[in-house]
């Protein structure tokens, strides 16, 4: 019996080939009559002003950092959830403590006004 990952590997390779086939076929049969105005950046007919790769609000980044911490936390919780049924009651409380410590962090961020959009 081979690993389930062999199946996933073959699946992803075929999953890449399948979308590529119509693109290749399209490249063969589609017309190619390009000109500069076709290739210009689309802004509903108006010429682009300035750089297109614009800077953006740093506000998103705070949410992203909070997100990262919680993402790592939930990953730790999956093994905990699986051992819950075979272990005594205090295992559930260990997980609750783990979540509680992080909720304290969320409350702190909330209190500090980091979850407000400015």
């Amino acid at each position: 019996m081979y690993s389930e990952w062999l199946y996933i590997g073959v699946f992803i390779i075929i999953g890449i080939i399948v979308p590529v086939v119509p693109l290749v076929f399209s490249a063969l049969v589609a017309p190619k009559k390009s000109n500069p105005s076709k290739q210009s950046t689309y802004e509903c007919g108006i010429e682009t002003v300035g750089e297109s790769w614009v800077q953006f609000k740093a506000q998103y980044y705070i949410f992203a950092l909070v997100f990262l911490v919680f993402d790592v936390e939930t990953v730790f919780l999956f093994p905990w959830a699986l051992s819950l049924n075979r272990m005594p009651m205090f295992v559930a409380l260990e997980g609750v403590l783990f979540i509680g410590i992080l909720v304290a962090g969320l409350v702190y961020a909330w209190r500090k006004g980091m979850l407000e959009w400015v």
Partner: protein
Amino acid sequence: MTAEQILFLLTGALILGSALMVVATRKLLHAALWLVAALFGVAILYAILQASFLAVVQVVVYIGAIAILFIFAVMLTRREMRDQGQQTRTNWWIAALLGLLILAGLVFLILAVPGADRLPAALPEGLDTVRALGNALVSPEAYVLPFEVASVLLLAALVGAVYIASVGKKD
């Protein structure tokens, strides 16, 4: 060579090649995308070792969160998006030397581990590695303290991020 070894070598080449491109490419965003490729290669290594949980967590956390945050940070810094300047510093050879020394040290350490030159034995049929990991994480005889300390560490990271952000806000 077995098929597994060929796969391992190919994955290693992918990781090393992408890692090299991370430092060699001119565009910062391409560097971040090559980093994604390198991290995906590490996930493949875990999959070859049948460490299913680590393989998916590698994709969820490293590609799904950390690499996307990298891309995001690159997008936030406007001027660096198309870097034109000199890419190497004059004392790059010191870094190369240090890198080689660390590599030599790691190889030495790994060779000292008994059984490092053997292929890993196949996992016993029907072993649920995630459940075993969970039991080890929560049982008091094993790793329950590191499990809870990890939570405190994450709390510290969160408080630190909030603090830095609130300092920047007052300016």
